[in-house]
């Protein structure tokens, strides 16, 4: 200790002559930093109500509550997160994980109140002073807790693809599947969009856990066609996927396929539940498509004896005859059908209802009848010359390809239509060495076909002619009926009525023509209802049987009750809807047979 120790401390007085450190008006002068994690904001329109914020929140601070003016719809639960500031710790994990990126934080941080019950609110729905704040925490660019990129599916190259009917999609490896399954947040938004309401988060979890038997069990709870659906499902679930709101949706379809591919048919019995004891009841099912066979599966699980009547030589319906082999290889379909058959379902192939057997007979011989005959009738072009011999119908072409018949399409093929049948027909034609033009009345984005299908068809070499209104089919000059001229009118899209989709309007004078060896019309299909007699008592409206929520068309006296479903009844034209209908009808039939009412 020296003299300095007595003098130096008085240096404190230096500060007395300097500017104080004190902030004059702290609340006004010192707003939160640009990145400050203040109170939450939510873009309620972008939010899909998936609840991932709730799942990640370690504080249990987030509730999902119905938001005023928002209804549940496909891809949006109608719920919005409500934050409890009696729990929140401002960690912003919810912002980082939010699949749609709708959650963010303002840099506001002052919220004082006497009443402890006010500290919860639904951001973006209940107005707060900090709404729309430009500053505050946003997750860093390119930084997300979830992976927005889908694991790419290994596929055949396009050149390779066109050269054969080999399956294009190879399926995920285990690592790929687990990585893809890891992207799912188990929100369950997809379940509502799936016509069969499959437990999608459940089986994706099974993939994550590597428990294929559990996965298969979950699949078969609602869908006995996992192999087929895993390949060709229209996957509306993926459109609803919350991950898709900010990136690629989870490849739900490929994961389903992955599960089914992993289990050998011989092991199915081990993984899947056993059916109930025989009930002694008999059920007839008309049509061995996905809908009919689904009904058959669930009915036989309930112990009923099921007979399926199929007009074609093989079961599978449109899955077999409408979908080309490169998309759904026959062994995969056979696996699904094989398991159903292995449960004791008998399929009478080559038996056509209305021709070989009458509906009324089924109604007397069986305890219930399920109609699932689909849409076998192709609609015509309705233009002059549509009965030209080179005008073929798309469904028929595909069916012939399935049967292995010579197609004789020739070198230049026009496909008219923009649906999946058109795409399948076009790609089948490509594989038969033809050059293909797809002519569609509207624009590419209006096409009802899956976007993937369109993309792949183009990639494989099909030329897409948009806005082409068919005018006429004429015999091509010097072709002797072996080629035809397809004449169309170029159109422009006109928004005629607000709120409705635009209408193609012919451009006067812009008439084009093309010479084709074959013209495949694929504009739509309809049901064949000729086998239903008035005496059957099945109510029909506008060529569709009228059914209740269980698919029951009639339980009129004079025979067993009749159920109907699938494309025959609904408007959705996909396998999964047919499967859902089949399942529902099976439940209805079962209840009826057991007298549980329906």
């Amino acid at each position, binding site marked *: 200790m020296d003299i300095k120790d007595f003098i130096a401390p008085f240096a404190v007085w230096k500060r007395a002559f300097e500017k104080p450190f004190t902030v004059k008006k702290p609340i006004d002068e010192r707003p939160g930093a640009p990145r400050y994690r203040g109170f939450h904001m939510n873009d309620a329109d972008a939010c899909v109500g998936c609840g991932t914020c709730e799942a990640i929140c370690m504080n249990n601070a987030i509730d999902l509550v119905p938001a005023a003016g928002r209804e549940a719809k496909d891809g949006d639960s109608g719920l919005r997160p409500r934050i409890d500031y009696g729990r929140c710790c401002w960690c912003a994990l919810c912002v980082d994980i939010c699949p749609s990126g709708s959650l963010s934080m303002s840099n506001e941080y002052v919220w004082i109140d006497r009443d402890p019950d006010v500290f919860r609110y639904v951001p973006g729905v209940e107005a707060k002073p900090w709404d729309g704040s430009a500053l505050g925490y946003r997750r860093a660019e390119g930084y997300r807790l979830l992976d927005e990129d889908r694991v790419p599916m290994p596929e055949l190259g396009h050149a390779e693809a066109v050269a054969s009917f080999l399956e294009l999609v190879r399926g995920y490896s285990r690592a790929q599947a687990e990585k893809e399954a890891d992207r799912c947040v188990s929100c369950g938004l997809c379940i509502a969009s799936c016509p069969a309401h499959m437990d999608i988060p459940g089986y994706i979890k099974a993939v994550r856990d590597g428990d294929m038997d559990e996965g298969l069990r979950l699949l078969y709870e609602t869908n006995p066609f996992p192999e087929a659906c895993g390949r060709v499902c229209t996957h509306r679930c993926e459109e609803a996927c919350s991950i898709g709101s900010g990136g690629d949706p989870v490849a739900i379809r490929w994961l389903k396929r992955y599960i089914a591919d992993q289990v050998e048919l011989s092991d199915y019995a081990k993984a899947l539940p056993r059916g109930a004891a025989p009930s002694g009841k008999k059920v007839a099912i008309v049509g061995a498509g996905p809908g009919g066979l689904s009904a058959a599966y669930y009915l036989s699980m309930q112990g009923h004896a099921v007979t399926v009547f199929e007009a074609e030589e093989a079961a599978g319906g449109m899955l077999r005859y409408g979908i080309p082999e490169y998309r759904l290889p026959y062994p995969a379909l056979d696996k699904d059908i094989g398991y159903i058959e292995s449960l004791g379902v008998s399929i009478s192939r080559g038996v056509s209802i209305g021709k070989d057997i009458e509906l009324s007979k089924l109604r007397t011989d069986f305890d219930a009848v399920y109609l699932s005959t689909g849409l076998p009738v192709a609609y015509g072009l309705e233009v002059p010359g549509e009965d030209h011999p080179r005008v073929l119908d798309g469904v028929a072409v595909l069916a012939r390809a399935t049967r292995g018949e010579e197609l004789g399409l020739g070198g230049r093929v026009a496909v008219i*239509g923009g*649906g999946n049948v058109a795409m399948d027909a076009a790609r089948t034609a490509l594989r038969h060495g033809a050059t293909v033009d797809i002519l569609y009345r509207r624009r590419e984005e209006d096409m009802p*076909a899956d976007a993937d299908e369109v993309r792949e068809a183009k990639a494989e070499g099909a030329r897409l002619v948009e806005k082409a209104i068919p005018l006429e089919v004429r015999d091509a000059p010097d072709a002797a009926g072996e080629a035809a001229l397809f004449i169309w009118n170029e159109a422009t899209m006109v928004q005629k009525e607000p709120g409705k989709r635009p*209408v193609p309007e012919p451009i006067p004078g812009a008439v084009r023509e093309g010479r084709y060896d074959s013209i495949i019309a*694929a504009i*739509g299909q309809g049901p064949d*209802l000729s086998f239903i*007699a*008035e005496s059957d008592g099945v109510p*029909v409206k506008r060529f569709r049987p009228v059914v209740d929520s269980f698919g029951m068309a009639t339980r009129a006296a004079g025979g067993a009750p009749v159920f109907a479903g699938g494309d025959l009844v609904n408007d959705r034209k996909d396998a999964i809807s047919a499967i859902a209908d089949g399942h529902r009808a099976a439940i209805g039939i079962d209840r009826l047979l057991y007298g549980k009412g329906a």
Partner: protein
Amino acid sequence: MDATTFAAALDLALGREKAAVAFYRELSAMASFAAQKSTLAEFMAMEEGHVAMISGMKAKGSVALSPTVAVDLGLAARMDAEERPTAGMTFQDILVAAIKKEERSGVLYERLAEAASQPGLKSVFERLVAEESRHKRYFEDLYESEISKDN
């Protein structure tokens, strides 16, 4: 506009609607299965509704028809088919027939409206044109959604 002319115009319309009913009835008679019958019956019921409406107007002496013409989707223009009543009619066939029929009615009224000298009468025909256009639009929408879905 004198009452007679007005009544005559409506009578003409009434006649056409009744003819339409008859047309559907005739088709229905040829129908081979229940689905055709029920669809035709539905369309027939629609036309009967029109008959009733026009008769009502005639009785009351007023015209309560909307003057708004529905948008023409332009399908009829490209349909080549005449009605071909066959036993195996599909839904497409029936709808095409219906659309064509409505279109012909519309064209007829349009011509009558052009030809009409009295402004009152002209307006009645124009309103009938509008009415028929809406019927046609109804069928066209059905066609778009049920038949030509993929195109």
